[in-house]
């Protein structure tokens, strides 16, 4: 055991050795997804599952997503692909061909879970829907990810990430009032669904271990996004208030009548600071005032303020405006690093708006050993990855292998596990099945 002592707690961790990814060691997942669902298999693989990414011959379309290694567009150099498929093995297979379908059925016999993100009805058309694969493997868990779910009036609607973000209520809440709603420059609707798919699959696995019963999991990307509406829906349901986008501010006050600034410019970038009221903000507001006063930048009204008595129900927008003027001036006179470092020292709730570089250099993430060097022998180099998203005292969730190359594990799986001969593999290769 190793003991980690900090000023506030001590934690004991078992020393984990390579090979300690045993928590889900015997859980095998066939990952038939593309962009919409890749994160599901990644999360399960991080937890130790044996995830086999099944791609169409030539490689999955998500390999075309940028950015690329050294900015060279190439299906073997997609950084998007690398990030979402590390820890998986990879095979190619045309599941629409008769031979391919037989092979996938054999794989399903030995699998615990199939994850897919094809359009609704596709799996049925090729004879691989849940009732069919349940006949092959009664305990199988099938996790289906689709934009709006397997049933309902929108089930056949086409979607993209931005459409899912719009339909789940997230997009409307974001952006400047003078422009259209605006979102995130990465496919987060798909990531939300991938995260939910992993959570649901694990719930189903827990059940299967106790009862032997498998299931079909119906993930709606729209519903996965709709968790982001947990403020806007109650605003409507209870107060008939439609929550609007108001960057860089946020809605506050007893009936949503106040706006508070969230993002503030500073000397070399931006920070995130929210003036909280009552007990939630008193300490931070007091510490900020003291800090400003030390630099002769605090006005009298802030110095005289009893921050414990700042009450959201009586606070006026005029007060907020005055506060913003002085606090804003103070933030502008400091760099992001100065402000964050000072906030940490004082215990104030203030955060930088980080870019990738700031994260790469974060002492916190470095101390936690978050970044991992992953070997890419075919590139002749190593690449730094965001590592384990969880620390578990009984399991290791780090990156143990880079994402698979196209068909990298065909031999291992088809020959080693299914017992196909070199000759058969040759025929299937020429026929475009693998």
């Amino acid at each position, binding site marked *: 055991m190793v003991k980690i002592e900090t000023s506030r707690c001590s934690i004991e961790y078992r020393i984990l050795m390579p090979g300690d990814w045993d928590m889900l060691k015997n859980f095998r997942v066939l990952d038939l997804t593309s962009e919409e669902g890749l994160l599901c298999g990644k999360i399960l693989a991080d937890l130790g599952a044996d995830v086999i990414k099944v791609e169409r011959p030539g490689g999955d379309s998500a390999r075309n997503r940028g950015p690329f290694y050294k900015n060279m567009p190439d299906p073997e150099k997609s950084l998007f692909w690398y990030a979402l498929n590390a820890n998986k093995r990879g095979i190619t297979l045309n599941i629409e061909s008769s031979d391919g379908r037989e092979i996938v059925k054999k794989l399903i016999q030995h699998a615990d879970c199939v994850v897919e993100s094809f359009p609704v009805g596709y799996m049925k058309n090729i004879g691989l829907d849940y009732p069919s694969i349940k006949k092959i493997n009664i305990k199988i868990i099938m996790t289906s990810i689709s934009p709006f779910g397997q*049933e309902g*009036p929108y089930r056949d609607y086409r979607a993209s990430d931005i459409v899912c973000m719009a339909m789940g209520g997230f997009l409307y809440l974001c952006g400047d009032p003078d422009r259209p709603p605006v979102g995130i420059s990465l496919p987060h609707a798909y990531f939300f669904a991938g995260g939910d798919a992993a959570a649901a699959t694990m719930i*189903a*696995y827990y059940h299967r271990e106790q009862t032997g019963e498998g299931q079909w*999991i119906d993930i709606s990307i729209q519903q996965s996004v*709709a968790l982001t509406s947990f403020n806007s829906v*109650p605003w409507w349901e209870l107060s008939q208030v439609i929550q609007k986008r108001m960057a860089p501010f946020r809605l506050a006050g007893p009936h949503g009548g106040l706006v508070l600034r969230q*993002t503030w410019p500073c000397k070399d970038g931006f920070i995130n600071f929210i003036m909280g009221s009552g007990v939630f903000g008193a300490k931070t507001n007091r510490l900020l005032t003291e800090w400003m006063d030390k630099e002769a930048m605090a006005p009298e009204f802030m110095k005289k303020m009893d921050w414990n008595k700042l009450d959201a129900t009586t606070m006026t927008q005029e007060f907020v405006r005055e506060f913003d003027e002085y606090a804003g001036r103070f933030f502008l006179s400091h760099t992001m690093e100065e402000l964050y470092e000072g906030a940490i020292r004082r215990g104030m709730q203030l*955060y930088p708006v980080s870019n990738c570089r700031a994260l790469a250099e974060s002492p916190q993430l470095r101390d936690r050993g978050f970044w991992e060097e992953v070997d890419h022998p075919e590139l002749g180099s190593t690449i730094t990855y965001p590592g384990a998203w969880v620390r*578990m005292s009984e399991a290791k969730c780090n990156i143990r292998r880079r994402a698979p190359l196209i068909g990298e594990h065909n031999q291992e799986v088809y020959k080693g596990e299914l017992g196909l001969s070199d000759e058969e593999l040759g025929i299937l290769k020429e026929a475009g099945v693998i």
Partner: protein
Amino acid sequence: MKEKEEKKEILEGLKVVDFGWAVAAPAICWYLAAHGATVVRVESSTRPDVYRVSAPYKDRKPGLNRGGFFAYPNVNKLSITLNLNLPQGIEIAKKIVTWSDVVVDNFRVGPMEKWGLGYEDLKKIKPGIIMLRTTNQGLTGPHNAHPGWGWQLVGLSGISNLSGWPDREPLSFGMPYTDVIAPRFGVAALMAALVYRNKTGKGQLIDLSQLETAIQFIAPAMLHYFVNNEEGKRIGNSSPYAVPHGVFRCKGEDRWCAISVFTDEEWQGFCEVIGNPVWVEDQKFRLLLDRKKNEEELNRLIEGWTIQHTAEEVMVLMQAAGVPAGVVKNGKDVFEDPQLNQRDYFWTLDHSEMGPFAHLGQPFRLSETPAKPRLPAPCLGEHSEYVCTKLLGMSDKEFVELLAMGTFE
């Protein structure tokens, strides 16, 4: 998928203590409660959850049991109030831990240890316990105790900087964004730990840093930085490889529809829907590369058409032509969404102070053991007596004595 009412719920019998606050930990327990686990929320009446004291309130009358933000995701849970500054309050907390399989909290590092409820303490009280602790930045490291909200962590995580318009500041979000990222990872890890416990008898500590889960959502941009030494760019609503791709103004006040066109077929369908105006034949828009070059002009021309139609009409017309499109739904639209309602997404339950209230439903459905609504969100301390006498087996007399000492405050 047919529901089988007679069946046991999937997590029935699983016992969870939720020491949560605001969103991150309560949301993890929300998935479990929805699927049948018995979840006891431990609260304080002297320092109630921030979401119990946040608007919107039913009938606009403030009250600890009238807040929508609290009620919405706390469906199916029980609430006990405990004064953890009293030794007997801590004693009861420890008894609840002994009763439980799983403890979840999102306090920053410090308070749980102070109360003797850190992992090292809990595993002595209950061998095999699984404790999931989700903090802003993890249990260890120089910033492990730095306080903050999900509203702010989105800035630290790098997500803000990769969101919004290229010519404007990084995006401020309309909700505490990282609070809805971490729970999905947390549930996956927690369930894996439960399977492992059932096999081996071993419990464990799960240290879930909300920052580290949020960075998984920008992983491609991090790799881009490390490999190519470039920062990712904010690209508004555009796509690097699809045009048109964006959000277009429609008829009515602040109404918008998202449209994205990826293939030639979708472009043809799109042109037909808008009535094949002369300009679609223009060299400037014929090919994807042309459209990318003239994207701004194209978007303006498209808006000339969308503005004449409601967002719903635009969506329906585009979808009929095979073009991905969707209304940019506000809170009211989501609440009234035909798809969500057809799928029974919202769980309307009769809340004792709020009356019928639509609670938040689950993002997925399990065919054999679907999640089910059982209880409306609890009033503050509503189940203190139930938890003590029924779950912990305390006598009525003992409960009343503790009550008189102010234990349940």
